[in-house]
């Protein structure tokens, strides 16, 4: 999938707010047809980066080219070919679901008739067809989110920017969105998304970067990142005592690495069951034991020192 031409190229990209640096010199290249993810804890600079790519926030430094154009000089021409789903919905609550799409389509020079047809099609796509003529105000948070995603597709964009597209959705709606995004990807649409859900990143992204403090701390495919920064299996141990810390020292020799969280200890090992046997042999009796595969969650924890609580 990484054979397409580069649609987004950033070199040493910087965003400053006053003397605070939110994005601190990142290099990113996204190719046509790819699904590219930005991961990182709160405040990492994901949204700031997305806004620069969306040509609504001028870079404070570095090089940025989108679709071969300069975002400052060619903003309108670039935005004509982007679809943007911002972190916070900015729908018009007074208009109907359909009107939100048709009025937005008109900003792109789309004829009225086409706008209406596309609205109908997109509302079916995000399963809001039966709410087309109701106002936006009383919709649930998840429905509004899906409408915002539909709005981002109204101009048949080449690149769709999705800032936390599924935050606040129930599991069923999230799976629906994943399935739809996957379909878009199959149609050749380039996806750029941020997320706090590692399963989302693993499912959707061909490549991703982990950001922390405005910098990129790791880059690669989900599989490569897991291989590089986590082990094949992870043993999660929960001890009944208030502090897990006391047990950590005894586990050090067990695996490649031990991570102590407030409520549990993670031991990174090639073979989980063998490690569990060793724990028992050490005379330790955790209240709870779980063996699982290494995941992006572990990569994230290792690289940022933080778990993924929103």
């Amino acid at each position: 999938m990484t054979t397409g031409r580069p649609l987004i190229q950033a070199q040493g990209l910087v965003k400053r707010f006053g003397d605070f640096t939110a994005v601190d010199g990142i290099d990113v290249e996204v190719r046509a047809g790819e699904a590219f993810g930005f991961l990182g804890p709160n405040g990492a600079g994901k949204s700031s980066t997305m806004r620069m790519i969306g040509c609504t926030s001028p870079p404070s430094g570095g090089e940025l080219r989108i679709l071969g154009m300069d975002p400052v000089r060619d903003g309108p021409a670039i935005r004509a070919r982007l679809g943007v789903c911002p972190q916070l919905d900015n729908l018009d609550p007074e208009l109907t679901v359909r009107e939100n799409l048709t009025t937005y389509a008109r900003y792109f020079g789309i004829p009225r008739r086409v706008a209406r047809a596309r609205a109908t099609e997109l509302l079916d796509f995000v399963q809001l067809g039966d709410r087309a003529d109701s106002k936006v105000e009383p919709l649930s948070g998840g429905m509004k989110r899906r409408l915002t995603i539909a709005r981002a597709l109204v101009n048949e964009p080449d690149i769709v920017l999705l800032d936390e597209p599924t935050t606040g959705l129930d599991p069923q709606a999230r799976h629906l969105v994943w399935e739809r995004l996957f379909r878009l990807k199959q149609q050749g649409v380039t996806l750029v998304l941020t997320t706090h859900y590692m399963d989302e990143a693993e499912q959707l992204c061909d490549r991703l970067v982990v950001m922390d403090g405005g910098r990129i701390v790791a880059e690669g495919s989900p599989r490569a990142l897991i291989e590089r920064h986590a082990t094949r299996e992870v043993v999660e141990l929960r001890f009944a005592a208030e502090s897990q810390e006391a047990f950590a020292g005894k586990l050090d020799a067990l695996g490649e690495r031990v991570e102590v969280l407030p409520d549990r200890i993670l031991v990174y090992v090639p073979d989980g069951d063998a490690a569990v046997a060793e724990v028992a042999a050490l005379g330790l009796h955790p209240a709870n034991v779980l063996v699982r595969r290494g995941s992006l969650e572990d990569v994230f924890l290792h690289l940022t020192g933080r778990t993924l609580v929103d």
Partner: protein
Amino acid sequence: MTAQLTRDRRPLPRVPALRVLEYHLVGYRRTWRAGAFSSFLLPTLTVLGFGLGVGSYIDQGVGGVSYLEWIVGGLLASTALQVAIAESTWPVFGNLQWQKIYFGQRSSPLRVGDILAGHLAFVLFRVLTSVIAFLLVTGVLGALRSPWAVLTVPVAALLALAVAAPTFAYAASVDSDSWLAMLFRFAVIPMTLFAGVFFPVESLPLALRWLAYATPLWHAVDLCRAAVLGVAPYWSVAGHLAYLAVWAAGGWLLARRVLARRLVV
């Protein structure tokens, strides 16, 4: 979709601001009935209240015409002012701070100037329809002395821009909507009371009189009154129009700057 990737340009709307106007009109379609009713009610009550009520106490009229005929031009201008300011205070603040509509528009090909122009075009639409309704009602009730009264329409349009543009800048720059209420208390109400709508500015003490001359409203009042009565205005027509145009142009530049500061972060 990935066939022609870079440097391919899509046709954009020729006048993007019209697409923004269209959006505002779609929203207005839901609420216009209440608005339209008051646009007819206000001039009717005006004619009844001032013509038959207050007017009957002012036997000699003003400068040789009845009080109703004298006041109707000023009230028309003040109606234009009220509508223009109402449509560029809370709606602007809400689109920026509450629903964040302008941020959504900004993610499309629209530029900051298009978003501003589209909103002001809608303000203009609201002012013009209100003023035309006002003229119809007062005309039917016989309160307009001269056919020149139709010239109040372009004057009201210019007044609308002269006040809506700087008000837009103000509403876009404040961080709390209580500042909007202050605008009404300390600018709109005093202006309405002292800028020659209800009594001639000449009856004010000299210092206050100059304050009244400084308001955009007085210039529109003088023009509208002259048109309705079919007489020459107190000041030169060109002077009035130029003064209002300066407010509109200055307000436009200021509003565009403030909106860009808000939207381009």
